[in-house]
């Protein structure tokens, strides 16, 4: 076939080419015209017929000859002739060859045709023989089939009879079988076969033989039905069984309406049992008063809720839908709607009650349970199971209710976590207070390294606590929970409730609490505690706060855009800085007051008019230096050294300037002039977070107090000299604690000047004697 087609195409092609060849001459002008129309610029290849072109069809020999004769010389002509003769000769021989070849081919073709003629004759004979053979076959076949016709109808009749007999046998055996099945409890089989046979029995029930069978079956089935009803009413533990039983009864042809009502009643009994069990573990007093042993934990409660109520409800509902809504209802649309309605009515109150129990329990546990993980997993399980039930009964909106509950649980849990953090902080602060109050850490007790260790562990513990709370918070958005995808948990929960509510809020509360200590003038925290808190808040401001924020970045980032209620981090840091400053200021003030009280007492209780000639530095002044040294130790254990102004080389050695005995009015004048030239003393500058600055603050307050006390007294000669000795001693020992020893010198100068002014007999001591007394200590 393919070959044929190919050859056909080949032939067509060939024919076309031949035609083209022969029609070429005639059509050429037309084509030419056509081309010209098509294309305004004539193709260069085609030329107008040239009569002088020997190859052209319009060739005119005479013209050509005359032209040659005119144009060419004789030798050229000769040559031309020779050339032409040669061409003509070769053309002749070519033609001869072609003719000969064609002739040969023609002879070959004739032979072939002749051969074909003989072959066809032979074939015709064969075909005739074949036709005869086939006729014979047809005849034989029809004979055979006519012969077998009889038997075939017999066979089919026989097989029909066989099936009928089988059926009959089944019918006859049915009562027995039914009985066996019923006895062995294979109720489903019995019902299935009975329903199959029922129609037949009904149709042929009037025949006596069938009558018997029919009756017998009916008896069995009625009994079966009774059994089924009985088990249906009695047994509501196994909800699967319940569905099956109802299915069977339904198949046995009892009216679906009453069955449906009965089913709901039975289901209700079962579900109410489940609820009652749940209630036991929810109801306020019983649940709380019962001993620890009986109280089940959240997870067990969740299992109970899932495995009990939710799962039973799901099974009951699905078999109800299968039986009544999809099964019976398919044929009775009216009943379908009614059945659905009944189901919803029945479920609504039960589910409502269930929700109340679960809500009470979960919220209660969210408030109290120490294990967040348990709460999350319990909520997750219940939510999953509730979602499954929701798919069956979307009308109850159980899933939405549960989602709302989840949000509430999460919020309550956030509160709980807040409470945990706060309690932890309070406890930690209390324990630090106790540690600081213990004798080993007391001022001058020498336990400086302990206080910084205490700070380290305090900070570490708080961070650990924060981390563990963070892990708890992450449980709510862990990927394996089914509600991590809820919008609330993806957005608001993350930034508002956890980030802002718990952690930023915690920092804020630390800040507030610490700030409260400084505001509350009745707060009886020890100075060491203030120092400790100052350092803690300072660290919080510099690093700890950012550590916490970094911890949050992974799972609880800032919300996109400018949401209301987002904390500005810089403002928070600034608040912390202010609080740290307040705390350290408070420390300085507290210590200053402590030293001041001592100084005041020592000055006010003494009669400076009639005092003895000074023999030594007063004990209280030495005590002052000792206290400073103790404070120095205490501050040094928590704060860095800080930068002191370069001490002038002779600062401690410089001679007292008060060795002259000034006239009364001169003192004032001198001190005023002195003040003019020295820069104004900023006695009270803000304290920085380093040791020297803190110490300087305390010293300044103490010396200022000394000055004020001196000014309120009147001095005799020796009283003044005692002050002179004391001040010199202070000058020798205090400079090393302070940033600027010039400042201390100035204050001490002023104290002595004031004492001179307040003296009735202003005679200062020889400075060499003063030095001696000071060295003796």
């Amino acid at each position: 076939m393919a070959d044929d087609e190919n050859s056909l195409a080949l032939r067509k092609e060939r024919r076309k080419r031949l035609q083209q060849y022969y029609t070429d001459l005639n059509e050429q002008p037309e084509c030419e015209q056509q081309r010209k129309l098509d294309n305004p610029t004539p193709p260069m290849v085609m030329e107008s017929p040239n009569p002088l072109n020997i190859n052209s069809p319009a060739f005119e020999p005479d013209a050509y000859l005359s032209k040659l004769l005119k144009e060419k010389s004789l030798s050229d002509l000769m040559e031309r002739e020779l050339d032409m003769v040669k061409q003509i000769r070769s053309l002749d021989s070519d033609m001869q060859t072609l003719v000969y070849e064609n002739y040969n081919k023609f002879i070959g073709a004739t032979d072939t045709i002749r051969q074909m003629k003989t072959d066809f004759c032979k074939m015709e004979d064969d075909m005739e023989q074949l036709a005869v053979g086939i006729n014979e076959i047809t005849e034989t076949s029809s004979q055979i089939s006519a012969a077998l016709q009889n038997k075939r109808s017999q066979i089919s009749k026989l097989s029909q009879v066989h099936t009928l007999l089988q059926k009959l046998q089944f019918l006859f055996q049915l009562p027995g079988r039914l009985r066996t099945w019923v006895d062995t409890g294979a109720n489903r089989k019995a019902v299935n076969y009975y329903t199959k046979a029922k129609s037949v029995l009904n149709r042929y029930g009037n025949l006596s033989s069938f009558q018997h069978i029919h009756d017998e079956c009916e008896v069995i089935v009625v009994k079966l039905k009774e059994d089924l009803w009985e088990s249906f009413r009695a047994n509501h533990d196994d909800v699967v069984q319940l569905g099956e039983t109802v299915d069977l009864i339904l198949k046995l042809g009892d009216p679906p309406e009453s069955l449906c009502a009965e089913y709901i009643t039975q289901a209700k009994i079962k579900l109410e049992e489940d609820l009652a069990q749940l209630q036991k573990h929810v109801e306020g007093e019983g649940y709380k008063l019962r001993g620890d042993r009986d109280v089940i934990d959240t997870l067990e409660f969740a299992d109970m809720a899932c495995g009990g109520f939710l799962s039973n409800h799901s099974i009951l509902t699905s078999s109800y839908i299968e039986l009544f809504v999809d099964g019976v209802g398919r044929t009775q649309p009216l009943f379908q709607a009614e059945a659905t309605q009944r189901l919803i009515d029945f479920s609504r109150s039960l589910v409502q009650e269930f929700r109340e129990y679960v809500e009470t329990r979960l919220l209660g546990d969210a408030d109290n349970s120490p294990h967040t993980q348990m709460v999350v997993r319990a909520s997750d399980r219940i939510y999953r199971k509730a979602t499954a039930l929701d798919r069956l009964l979307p009308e109850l909106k159980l899933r939405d209710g549960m989602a709302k509950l989840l949000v509430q649980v999460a919020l309550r849990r956030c509160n709980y976590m807040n409470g945990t953090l706060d309690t932890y902080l309070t406890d930690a602060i209390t324990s630090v207070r106790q540690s600081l109050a213990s004798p080993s850490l007391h001022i001058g007790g020498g336990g400086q390294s302990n206080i910084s260790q205490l700070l380290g562990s305090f900070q570490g513990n708080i961070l650990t606590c924060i981390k563990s709370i963070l892990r708890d918070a992450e449980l709510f958005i862990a990927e394996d929970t089914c509600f991590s995808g809820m919008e609330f948990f993806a957005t608001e929960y993350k930034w508002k409730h956890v980030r802002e509510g718990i952690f930023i809020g915690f920092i804020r509360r630390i800040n507030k609490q610490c700030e409260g200590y400084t505001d509350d003038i009745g707060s009886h925290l020890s100075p060491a505690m203030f120092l400790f808190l100052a350092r803690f808040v300072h660290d919080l401001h510099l690093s700890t706060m950012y550590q916490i924020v970094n911890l949050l970045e992974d799972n609880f980032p800032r919300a996109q855009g400018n949401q209301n209620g987002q904390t500005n981090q810089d403002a928070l840091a600034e608040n912390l800085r202010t609080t740290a400053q307040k705390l350290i200021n408070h420390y300085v003030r507290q210590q200053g007051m402590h030293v001041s009280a001592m100084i005041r007492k020592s000055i006010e209780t003494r009669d400076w008019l009639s005092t003895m000639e000074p023999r030594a530095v007063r004990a209280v002044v030495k005590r002052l230096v000792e206290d400073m040294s103790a404070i120095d130790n205490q501050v040094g254990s928590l704060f860095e050294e800080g930068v002191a102004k370069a001490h002038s080389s002779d600062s401690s050695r410089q001679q007292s300037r008060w060795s002259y005995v000034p006239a009364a009015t001169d003192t004032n004048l001198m001190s005023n002039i002195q003040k003019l030239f020295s820069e104004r003393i900023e006695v009270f500058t803000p304290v920085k977070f380093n040791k020297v600055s803190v110490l300087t603050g305390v010293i300044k307050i103490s010396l200022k107090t000394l000055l004020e006390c001196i000014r309120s007294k009147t001095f005799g000669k020796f009283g003044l000299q005692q002050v002179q000795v004391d001040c010199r001693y202070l000058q020798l020992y205090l400079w090393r604690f302070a940033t600027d020893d010039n400042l201390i010198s100035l204050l001490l100068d002023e104290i002595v000047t004031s004492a001179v002014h307040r003296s009735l007999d202003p005679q200062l001591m020889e400075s060499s004697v003063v030095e001696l007394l000071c060295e003796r200590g």
Partner: protein
Amino acid sequence: MDDAPVIYGLEFPARSLAAQCAETEVTRFLVGTQALRAENQIHLVDFDEDNNLVNKTVYAHRLGEIWNIAASRGNKHLLSTCYNHIELNKSIQRAAVWRMPDSHEDDMDSVRMSSDSETLHKLTDLDDVDHVNTVAVIWHPSGIDDKIASITDSALLIWDLNAECQSTVADVKESGMKSKLLAAAWNPHHNSQQIAASCGSTVKAWDIRQSGVRQGSAVWSLESINDETVRCIDFNPNRPYIVASCGDDCRLNIWDTRNSKQCLMSILEHSHWIWSVSYNQYHDELILTSSSDSRVILHKLCSVSSEPHIESADDVSDDKQPREDKLVNVYEDHEDSVYAAVWSSVDPWLFATLSYDGRLVINRVPRAEKYNILL
């Protein structure tokens, strides 16, 4: 712009300052010097507001250095001083009532030699045999001049100048208190029958009618929580029961005397002891404190003033700053401890402060704040 402060310098240290309360035309202040070994003076300083000029009259006070000065509210010629008296290596404080010469106005015209100081006429001494060391004298707030109170270390005494007799209202030694009395204020409310005095860290008030043979017990008593000395007290002139106190705890405390357990407000701005607190007589939200940190601070405490929040419906004060408690200004014109700060009795926006180095500074409430209060 606010006017620059006017500074008046004394040759001697000083810690006592009082406004001449009875004078209603000219702003006048009394300053007492404190020189142990020189003759002390009382400077009567006139402030000419129009020209921002200060005129002074100097009176000699030969009895000793002055620790406290007070002016009568009824008679502008009367004043009292507490001064140091030294005898036998003992220093005690005594008090006296003085009358200034009547010819004060003439002095202004006929310029006398300044070195030739005027003399004061001593009316009476306020000395009691049992109670020495008078630390302060206070005049009756309503200007009844025959009644005057003095505070000694241990007792509160009431003097009747006409009858030249004295009665003891309270004796702290006998009532078993250890601290000394330090400052006192006469309650201007309720017929001026109460005097409050500070005793260590507590403030106690006594009813002056209880005077007699037996001293009465305190009417009320305010206990500072931190055990720091109270150095000055002042009653709110317009709102009863409200008292301001200050002292070594560096705080300005406002109390309601009906609730002695807790103060209404406690403001920590100074960094050393506060030596004086003073209510503005006209606008009692303005309170002046001065401290040995050499600063003077003007507070505005509306919430405890006599005009707390009158934000009624016809309130058009949206453009006005809300009336809130704030620190109005810190004055840093002094270089030494400021022991006294008093308001002018004439111009409610004017006050004077005195530091130990003898520098008297007359200053004003910032103009912005003044308009804020007035408008």
